[in-house]
């Protein structure tokens, strides 16, 4: 048994979980073409959820702040991007890939810009006064979430908003009897690029070194002469912007969004962060991919269990590894 564990560890340990999941699903689903479609959908969802969750994980790890308002950035990102896409609809339907892409880029930039500014305001006005007080953090950030949902309702109304997609991301690639939605491929690639960028930032730069050190021991980082408050604001803004971008990508993925989006994603995002291990970007990616795959496989095999499956997954993983799959060292 120990030897088996050692062998598994050598080939990637917990990183093999998504692979194991995909193999089990392959057997259960039976039809290879459906399996490929679901796997691609799961990976695409996983990477978008990763964007949404990474900020929450970093903010908790570094600042020890439980931000239940995090999903407000996701839904605002989605709605801001949707508004920009609707306004630039004539570019989206144009026959020029450049105009298509520009419209999408503007939508994403608007979401990111919103995330940065709103993150800065949120951190300085709402979170700063309740550092080191978890109960008040939960109450005040929950309050902010409810208020922001009402604001979305007031601005965009309660009816679902249809999100136009750029022309060049419509449709599917057909390979044999397998069909892959282009937008899913796009979401996967963009999400993967951002993960690589974040990984580089965290592991190859001085700021990243400071963040990783701060996740472990804030007092010691201060004692070395670094102002951790400035680092906090920066990380909070980055996390909010990533969540807004994730929401923007999600809007294009779902093509129909409602103000309830934030609340729905919040549950998933929390599951991901808890599974992955708070404060760890690698763990967040792992958790997001596992959750994305599970949601799609179970959604196909037993649709009624889709949400429960991820909860069960979280409980099972917590019983096995109470700190999550790949926690930041504390």
């Amino acid at each position, binding site marked *: 048994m120990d030897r088996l564990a050692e062998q598994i560890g050598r080939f990637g340990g917990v990183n093999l979980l998504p692979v194991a999941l995909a193999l089990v699903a392959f057997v259960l689903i039976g039809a290879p073409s459906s399996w490929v479609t679901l796997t691609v959908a799961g990976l695409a969802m996983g990477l978008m959820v990763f964007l949404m969750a990474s900020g929450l994980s970093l903010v908790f790890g570094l600042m020890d702040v439980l931000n239940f308002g995090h999903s407000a950035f996701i839904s605002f990102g989605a709605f801001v991007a949707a508004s920009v896409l609707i306004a630039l609809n004539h570019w989206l339907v144009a026959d020029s890939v450049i105009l298509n892409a520009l419209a999408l880029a503007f939508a994403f930039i608007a979401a990111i810009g919103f995330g940065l500014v709103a993150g800065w305001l949120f951190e300085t006005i709402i979170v700063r006064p309740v550092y080191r007080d978890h109960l008040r953090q939960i109450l005040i950030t929950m309050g902010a979430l409810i208020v922001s949902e009402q604001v979305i309702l007031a601005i965009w109304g309660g009816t679902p908003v249809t999100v136009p997609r750029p022309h060049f991301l419509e449709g599917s690639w057909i390979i044999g009897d397998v069909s892959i939605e282009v937008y899913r491929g796009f979401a996967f690639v963009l999400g993967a690029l951002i993960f690589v960028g974040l990984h580089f930032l965290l592991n190859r730069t001085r700021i990243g*070194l400071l963040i990783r050190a701060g996740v472990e*021991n804030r*007092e010691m980082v201060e*004692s*070395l*002469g670094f*102002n951790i408050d400035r680092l906090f604001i920066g990380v909070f803004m980055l996390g909010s912007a990533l969540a807004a971008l994730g929401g923007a990508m999600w809007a294009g993925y779902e093509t129909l969004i409602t103000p309830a989006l934030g609340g729905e994603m919040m549950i998933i995002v929390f599951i991901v962060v808890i599974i992955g291990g708070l404060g760890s970007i690698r763990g967040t990616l792992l958790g997001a991919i596992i959750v994305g795959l599970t949601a799609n496989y179970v959604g196909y095999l037993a649709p009624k269990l889709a949400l429960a499956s991820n909860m069960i997954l979280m409980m099972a993983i917590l019983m096995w590894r109470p700190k999550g799959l790949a926690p930041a*060292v504390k």
Partner: protein
Amino acid sequence: MSLLSLEDVRTDIGQYAVLHCISLEVPEGGVFVLLGRNGAGKTTTLRSIMGLWRPKAGAIRFQGEVISGLHTAEIARKGIAYVPENMGIFGGLTVEENLVLATEKGKFDPDRLARIYGLFPALEQFWTKQAWSLSGGQKQMLAVARAIVEPRALILIDEPTKGLAPSIVAAMAEAFRDIARTTTILLVEQNFHFAKSLGRDMAVIEDGRVVHSGTMAGFAADAELQNRLLGLAT
């Protein structure tokens, strides 16, 4: 003028008054030893100097300037390094990363690095290892090394020999002697023999108050005083 002075410093932790009246004069150069029983307030004194607890009364001066009330990061940048009781090592970072974080510009001064390698050869050996995998003694070496990566006027060190094997304690004493040639060390220590061999001046804290201060030579010669203040049966 002393390098560091505390005047009637009082510090509360939460609603508990922990430091009642701490007055100290730490002269420049050498090792100043702070002694006291468990729970006397030694760690709290160091944390108050570092700004990790905010004193509610009294003044802390460093190089003539009042530092009490400043932010921890500002206090550190004035030239004070801190080696906490739990060492404060970043376990997920490599030995190199732990040390490079303490540099001002992200680059090592080659001479200082050579000196660190000379004092603590184990650090060079485990340079690329994650710090959590080091032994207790090696972690303590890393914590001390991190405090001397940049030139500092004062290093606060909290119980560096706790739980270490005698051979490592001896190496540590050697390193401190070397460091104290260029830097002042304020050392909190329970191991009296270790402290005695290093200290020039000293003070004893009891229940949040300074109950004795003087030279180490004088204190070391007075067995009755030691017994009364520290409960050492020599």
